[in-house]
């Protein structure tokens, strides 16, 4: 690792100030960023740690019935504390990485990184969540802009994420056996006004909504409703773990399993 300074602010205001330093970068739980720094794939001169900011931590229901999660909340806390309010989301959080990673990795860090195989982007897009930053509110539909790309500006931090809570939901992931990341993951959520289906791990463009499946499932919320629907493998990630066609096929299979398991 190249050396850098570490700032450990205790308020969002101080974090924003620290991020004003030259080549400063926010540090969430560090479960992706620290390995990246070890590989010398990033070389910030200042890391601003967000995990000591109490106002960015915790899980609660808002007055209008949405589930609010602080950006610096670790996956393990979401798995525990969201279970009562939004079981599909809590279940997703309880299967990210491994237990030690879940104790450090944060929802804000995951969404800011937008790894094409990360789990949380599927939940945020599949729920129609709102990403709240130190500057503004961004709808999930506008937030994800391709592999590792988001609507965030340089130094902008995810302070909170608000999830509308669906009637039923489930996340089904097919893990890549070595890394345990999602080879393909599908988040299905049924709301009163329709169904949302978000797919991670599969596309070269990162997380996306499978709109044909949404239409089919909105009129008939059953696994069979997606029979006959197919995605093209041409736009899918193709690597030694699976071809584009294989991933496209898995999207259908995972969608069916998610619908069947939705609670």
């Amino acid at each position, binding site marked *: 690792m190249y050396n850098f300074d*570490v700032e450990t602010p205790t308020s969002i205001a101080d974090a924003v100030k620290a991020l004003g330093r030259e080549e400063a970068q926010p540090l969430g739980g560090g479960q992706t960023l*620290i390995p990246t720094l070890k590989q010398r794939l990033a070389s910030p001169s200042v890391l601003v740690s967000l995990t000591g900011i109490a106002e960015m931590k915790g899980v609660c229901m808002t007055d209008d019935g949405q589930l609010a999660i602080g950006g610096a909340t670790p996956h393990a806390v979401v798995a525990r504390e969201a279970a009562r309010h939004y079981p599909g989301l809590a279940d997703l959080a309880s299967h990210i990485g491994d237990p030690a990673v879940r104790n450090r990795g944060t929802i804000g860090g995951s969404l800011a990184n937008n790894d094409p195989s990360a789990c949380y982007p599927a939940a945020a897009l599949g729920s129609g969540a709102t990403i709240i930053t130190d500057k503004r509110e961004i709808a999930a539909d506008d937030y994800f802009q391709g592999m590792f790309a988001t609507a965030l500006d340089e130094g902008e931090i995810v302070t909170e994420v608000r999830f509308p809570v669906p009637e039923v939901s489930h996340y089904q992931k097919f893990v890549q056996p070595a890394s345990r990341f999602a080879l393909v993951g599908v988040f299905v959520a049924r709301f009163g006004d329709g169904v949302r289906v978000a797919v991670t791990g599969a596309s070269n463009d990162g997380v996306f909504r499978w709109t044909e499946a949404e239409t089919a499932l909105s009129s008939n919320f059953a696994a069979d409703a997606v029979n006959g629907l197919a995605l093209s493998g041409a736009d899918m990630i193709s690597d030694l773990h699976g071809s584009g066609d294989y991933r496209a096929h898995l999207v259908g299979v995972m969608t069916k399993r998610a619908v069947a398991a939705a609670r």
Partner: protein
Amino acid sequence: MTQVKMTVNGKAASGDVEGRTLLSSFLREQLNLTGTHVGCDTSQCGACVVHVNGEAVKACTMLAAEAQGAEVTTIEAMANADGSLSVIQQAFQDHHGLQCGFCTPGMVMSAAALLKENPKPTEREVRVYLEGNICRCTGYHNIVKAIMAASGQDVSRIAAE
């Protein structure tokens, strides 16, 4: 350099660290607590698992500066006060839950974290919990058996020979 202060194994510890100093490096190189092993340095193997404020974390994937003020527990504090092996450690010995022993500190720390939150795990729960701890010797069967035994459950019918 900045000074970090934390409590390690119940005692006050401090030292001057660079921004990039990992918690694992601080423990091993500055406090000479070399029981915490660094197996992969890519956050995958779990040999470096320690407890920070009671929770299992990978010490190679946390900066020492982030542990400012924290309570850190390492494998060095797992034995009983009289120096005898703890229940989990003894179970690893009794059930041959180690061969080369390199992964064992992380296995014991993960096992302790698991049993704290789930005192009577099923075999499957143990295996799932150990997803982030890699052992290249044992094939895991005897590690799982040791953890089940440490939880006070009958292990006579568990896993392979």
